């Protein structure tokens, strides 16, 4: 039987506020345990929450970024359950009236095709603390520093049909939130976490199969692997005549499998009700319009502009708009040199290669965008040739100079375009290579084109790479042919 996979994602994004969603405690990562858990975060008797303006603004910005409806009123509810990392015995969340209504996210697949994934809604809530399972005499330690960090939970419709689509969606969300600057998107530190709902159904069947939820999948790669495993597991189960049980599963990256979370608990009953300590959040139109007017250009728009206005290929536009840092870098290079295609080639070629080798993110590149732009300009105005340009790039990368011009000067890489000087070098090479000249002369005229390469190489070598290769080529051909 042909099976179709159906995937929906719940993505939790930690918002990059300075203070917590309901208290003035810091959200900084990595502090001493419980040193950033204030009275409100601890749920001490008598404390009360007050909502952080920045968390609201960031949630609305996200909503605007996915062209979602922004309801005028949203309401906080309490989700009641007991867990040691949940200090109040309830999580303040938004069940019935979320801050962001339906919207959509465009994803780009590997073949360059795009697809729209609908977002059901996004809501604000508070993060929980952390349980540390190191051995404290058989006890678990609870650190509540993270408790109260604002989260935006983005709930998709079950619109994805493959692990690749799910990963692309997660990347798209990542790029939107980092473009907006509303999250650092650091998955290793848990700034973005993801629950995956997976089901399979016979191709052509309209109704969904029974789904499982894979909790806390925390990297793009793990999302793909977890889904791949889970889809296979479900299909095998169904083909063996079994049934998929609706349950929560955990992904174990070490064993590359999902497994059922042991739930001896009765089914949860979260007893949602409106939080009586908080009032409805009303967003006036002027406020939302102000946020809309100040929204940065988002990846999808940028990609379209790169293609349409700059004439880049769909692939180049996609790669260069994937992250805000990459796009900003590229745009500076393009601004400085004035040629989008050359700029794109350099950013994706020499620069990306070097970054990948060193495992550096683009914002940590030793070569600044302005430096690279100037370098490209020098290629464009024939100051240096392509080969020398690579040397200049390497020198800048190694910190051997502050600008392309400085390196060109110091290393004497300026391209030689003086015909007389090039001719002198050519004459010398011809004089030094009688055997090769003889071969050239004896060859069929249509084979000579290939053989000229040797002489070009020698001349370039003699010029220490600075001779203009086009000139060298033309003059060599002229001189050699004259010998024939």
């Amino acid at each position: 039987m042909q099976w179709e996979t159906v995937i929906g994602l719940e993505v939790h994004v930690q918002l990059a506020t300075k203070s917590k969603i309901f208290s003035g405690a810091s959200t900084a990562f990595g502090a001493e345990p419980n040193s950033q858990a204030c009275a409100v975060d601890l749920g001490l008797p008598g404390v009360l929450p007050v909502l952080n303006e920045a968390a609201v603004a960031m949630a609305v910005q996200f909503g605007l970024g996915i062209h979602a409806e922004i309801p005028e009123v949203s309401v906080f509810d309490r989700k009641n359950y007991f867990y040691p990392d949940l200090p109040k015995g309830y999580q303040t969340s938004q069940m019935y009236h979320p801050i962001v209504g339906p919207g959509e996210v465009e994803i780009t697949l590997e073949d360059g095709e795009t697809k729209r994934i609908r977002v059901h809604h996004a809501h604000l809530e508070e993060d929980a603390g952390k349980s540390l399972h190191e051995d404290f005499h058989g006890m678990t330690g609870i650190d509540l520093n993270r408790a109260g960090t604002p989260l935006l939970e983005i709930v998709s419709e079950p619109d994805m049909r493959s692990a690749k689509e799910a990963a692309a969606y997660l990347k798209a969300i990542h790029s939107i939130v980092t473009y907006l600057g509303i999250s650092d998107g650091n998955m290793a530190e848990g700034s973005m976490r993801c629950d995956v709902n997976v089901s399979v159904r016979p191709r052509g069947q309209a109704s969904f199969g029974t789904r499982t939820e894979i909790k806390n999948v925390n990297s793009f790669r793990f999302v793909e692997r977890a889904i791949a495993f889970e889809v296979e597991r479900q299909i095998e189960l169904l083909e063996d005549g079994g049934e998929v049980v609706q349950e929560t599963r955990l992904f174990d990256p070490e064993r590359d499998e999902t497994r059922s979370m042991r739930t001896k608990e009765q089914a949860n009953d979260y007893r949602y009700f409106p939080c009586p300590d908080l009032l409805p959040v009303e967003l006036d139109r002027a406020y939302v319009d102000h946020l809309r007017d100040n929204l940065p250009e988002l990846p999808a728009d940028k990609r379209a502009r790169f293609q349409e206005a700059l004439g880049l290929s769909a692939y180049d536009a996609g790669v260069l708009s994937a992250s805000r840092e990459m796009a900003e870098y590229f745009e500076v290079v393009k601004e400085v040199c004035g040629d989008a295609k050359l700029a794109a080639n350099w950013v994706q070629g020499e620069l990306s290669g070097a970054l990948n080798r060193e495992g550096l993110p683009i914002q940590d590149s030793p070569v600044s965008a302005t430096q690279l732009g100037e370098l490209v300009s020098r290629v464009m105005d024939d100051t240096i040739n392509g080969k020398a340009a690579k040397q200049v790039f390497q020198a800048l990368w190694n910190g051997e100079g502050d600008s392309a011009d400085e390196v060109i000067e110091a290393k004497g890489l300026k391209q030689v375009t003086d015909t007389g000087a090039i001719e002198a070098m050519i004459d010398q090479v011809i004089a030094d290579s009688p055997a090769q000249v003889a071969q050239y002369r004896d060859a069929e005229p249509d084979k000579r084109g290939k053989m000229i390469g040797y002489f070009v190489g020698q001349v370039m070598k003699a010029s220490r790479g600075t001779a203009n290769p086009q000139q060298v080529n033309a003059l060599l051909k002229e001189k050699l042919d004259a010998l024939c």
Partner: protein
Amino acid sequence: MALEHADVLRAAHLARLGLDDDEAAHYLDDLGRILAMVDQLQTLDTEGVDPLAHPLETTQRLRADEVTETDQRDRFQRCAPAVEQGLYLVPRVVE
């Protein structure tokens, strides 16, 4: 809406209140009578009436995003039953 013994045990579990069977039976009796009193609500037609969550229907005031709290861990943990290395201790959590 009649209340059953299982309902009391279920509520007790959700609320993490340890109850033995005798206590549950006692509360079943009390809660049954309280619910009977509460069920008078059902005689009132509230079709089309908006629920009222707060007596004053005002809206949420927002706080500026500023860090105003300092580390007071030692003070807050003085009233904690079990802490070690700044962590609150609980019986091992199995995941």
